[in-house]
């Protein structure tokens, strides 16, 4: 008895599955013609190691959307957010972004992806032409590189090169005042860590030419044990240390370095320290760590900023993060542009948004501007200060000078061949 394998089985089940597939993909398809509400799609990271940041992005957006809706919505249309998890995978981010536009009928997009995910969503925006604001990617190339430029995409996140210029000049001033010549660096071993450290030391040496880097450590991203890194730095005996470790990596690093009393032996510059996710988690926050501001409700020292931080805390029972203010700013800009354009149409909003300046609690002078030529946010509060172990954590922040930032940024763009 011989029987060949039944072709009917696979064919039948394949057909059944295809049918099921068609159904479940087509079912959520809803008529979106001339809906009164406008849907805004938002892919972000809601699971995995950076879920806390994704959640804080969602919180900030919801906080602002409530205000916009209460004030009549986007050009008269109530906003409905459709927020979906991308798991931090670029191919998922691209898929989710396409799904939000093609299936859910979202007419505008907030891209709250980090790193490679933002570039994946950027390609979707290029392909579909949907209006899109990148809120979390700080990679300078996203807007600085003219190859990336598309008319419908903007960024409301801080930019890596801005941070480096301000950090470098701040650190150089202290290096000169205190005679800090021997420096060490310790940053995570991936593009953000490498690039940011390179840019920081570039500007540090520019402002303080006799600085010398005597030791470099590159711990892996999400490394649990920093003992060898700490001992290596202690042996090199630098006068100052720069680090762009962030989040859980930074807090475990500080907790472990505390055991070796590292912070008494050198000046420490940790750009990502002044964020509540790090400040409130460290067990014994050492006094006097230099840090760039990420989000802190005491800088800028305006009542508007403090009120915004408190309102967020009251609603979500935790302080906002760096991603929170970046996302909130996106909604503020979008709402203002829609009001000016008197339309919720992505193209019209994009036209008005170019070069638009709005009042904003996170602005260095109370306003922020969406720069017209490269579609990125400028004029936001940026500065450095030193930590204390209790609230307000960073009592005094020295603001960076935007005029210097613009000059050096233009120079940097030229050196990269972007202009």
């Amino acid at each position: 008895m011989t029987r060949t394998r039944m072709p009917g089985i696979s064919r039948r089940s394949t057909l059944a599955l295809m049918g099921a597939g068609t159904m479940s993909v087509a079912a959520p398809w809803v008529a979106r013609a001339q809906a009164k509400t406008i849907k805004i799609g938002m892919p972000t990271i809601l699971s995995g190691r950076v879920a806390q940041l994704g959640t804080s992005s969602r919180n900030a957006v919801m906080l602002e959307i409530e205000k916009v809706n209460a004030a009549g919505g986007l050009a008269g249309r109530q906003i409905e957010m459709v927020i979906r998890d991308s798991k931090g995978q670029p191919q998922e981010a691209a898929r989710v972004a396409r799904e939000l536009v093609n299936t859910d009928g979202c007419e505008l997009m907030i891209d709250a992806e980090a790193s490679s995910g933002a570039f994946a969503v950027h390609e979707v925006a290029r392909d579909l032409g949907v209006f899109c604001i990148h809120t979390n990617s700080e990679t300078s190339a996203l807007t600085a590189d003219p190859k990336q430029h598309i008319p419908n995409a903007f960024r409301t996140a801080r930019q890596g090169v801005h941070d480096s210029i301000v950090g470098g000049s701040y650190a150089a001033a202290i290096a000169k005042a205190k005679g800090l010549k021997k420096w060490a660096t310790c940053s995570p071993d991936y593009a953000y860590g490498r690039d940011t450290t390179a840019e920081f030391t570039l500007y540090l040496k520019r402002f303080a030419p006799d600085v010398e880097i005597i030791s470099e450590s590159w711990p892996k991203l999400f490394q649990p044990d920093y003992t060898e890194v700490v001992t290596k730095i202690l042996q090199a005996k630098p006068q100052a240390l720069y680090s762009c470790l962030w989040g859980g990596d930074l807090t475990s690093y500080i907790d472990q370095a505390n055991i070796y009393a590292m912070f008494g032996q050198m000046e420490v510059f940790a750009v990502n320290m002044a964020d509540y996710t790090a400040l409130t988690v460290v067990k014994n926050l050492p006094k006097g760590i230099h840090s760039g501001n990420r989000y802190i409700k005491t800088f800028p020292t305006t009542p508007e900023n403090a009120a915004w931080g408190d309102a967020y805390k009251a609603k979500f029972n935790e302080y906002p993060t760096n991603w929170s203010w970046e996302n909130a700013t996106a909604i503020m800009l979008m709402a203002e542009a829609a009001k000016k354009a008197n339309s919720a149409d992505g193209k019209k909003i994009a036209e008005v948004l170019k070069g638009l300046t709005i009042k904003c609690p996170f602005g260095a002078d109370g306003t922020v501007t969406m720069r017209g030529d490269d579609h990125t946010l400028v004029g936001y509060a940026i500065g450095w200060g030193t930590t204390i172990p209790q609230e307000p954590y960073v009592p005094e922040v020295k603001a960076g000078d935007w005029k210097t930032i613009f000059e050096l940024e233009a120079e940097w763009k030229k050196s990269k061949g972007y202009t």
Partner: protein
Amino acid sequence: MTELEAGRAQTLVPVRSAAALQRYRDVLIALIAFAVLASLPLFTGSKALLDFVIRCSAYGLFATSLNLLVGYTGLISFGHGMFFGLGAYSFGLIMQKLGVPIPMAFVTTLAITTVVAAIIGAICVRLKEIYFAFVTLAFQMLIHSTILSWASFTGGDQGLRGGIPRPVFLGIDLSNHVHLYVTSCALLILGLLAMRQIAQSPFGYTLRMIRDNAARASFLGIDVWRAKLAVFVLAALFASMGGMVMALFVSGAYPEFAYWTISGEAIFINMLGGVSTFLGPMVGTVLLLLLNDTVTRFTEYHGIVLGIVILFFALGLRKGLLDFAADWFAHRRETGEGR
């Protein structure tokens, strides 16, 4: 009924004609499947459905090619994703840097994959079982780390930026969604058909023999190492094709494509769909993507749902869906015959 039984022959002539018949049948099924898929855009305007099929093509090619190793040869590769990533990156880089026509980039990518797979395979297929699995994993991590650290060439962890240019060739414009869709379907069907031919060829039965008893195959005069290497390279080629479809879909390539999790997904797909039938991985692909897409619509706790599904398949069915269905049908028929 095992495949060996199916292949058992009384005389040579009927076997030949049966094989030819089966080949015609496979080609016919492939043509019908392609006709159905390609005509879909005529009936529905749902871009999401087309997106879904494009992604199914990418993952389907990738997962089915893994099954050539896992199901047919008994080589459990944990690093198969490296060829998916390699395909996506080679194709993207060639298109970005050289600006050659798309078919040229396609063929060049396959050539690159062949060379890389031959080198890696030559080292890996000497090993068995867990050792093979871990060395493939090690090579995958090597490729992944290279992509990350060679930032000036690959863009590092930000991936290939700036989009993949798609010049029109032979009237096909891959920046057009429907054209991309039909091309992906064609690649999927051609790939599946080619893999089916490999699986049903004498070489395919040699692989099954190696899986079941490598020593016996060796005593029959089969060069086991060469056969394993050949199938390793072939599987890599189809995985690379899957990677190219994915690169075209997202218009870029990202280090995640070469990370171990993507290999894990392929293994999971094979578990879901089943490894003892040819279309098992394809069914698994559709299942996993459907599950993923529907679950992530409703909750960010998709990990729990997928975990439960894995448990159901591992502990409940104890095999892939198509395996289960095939067994069930076979069982029903046998009891029916016994009556």
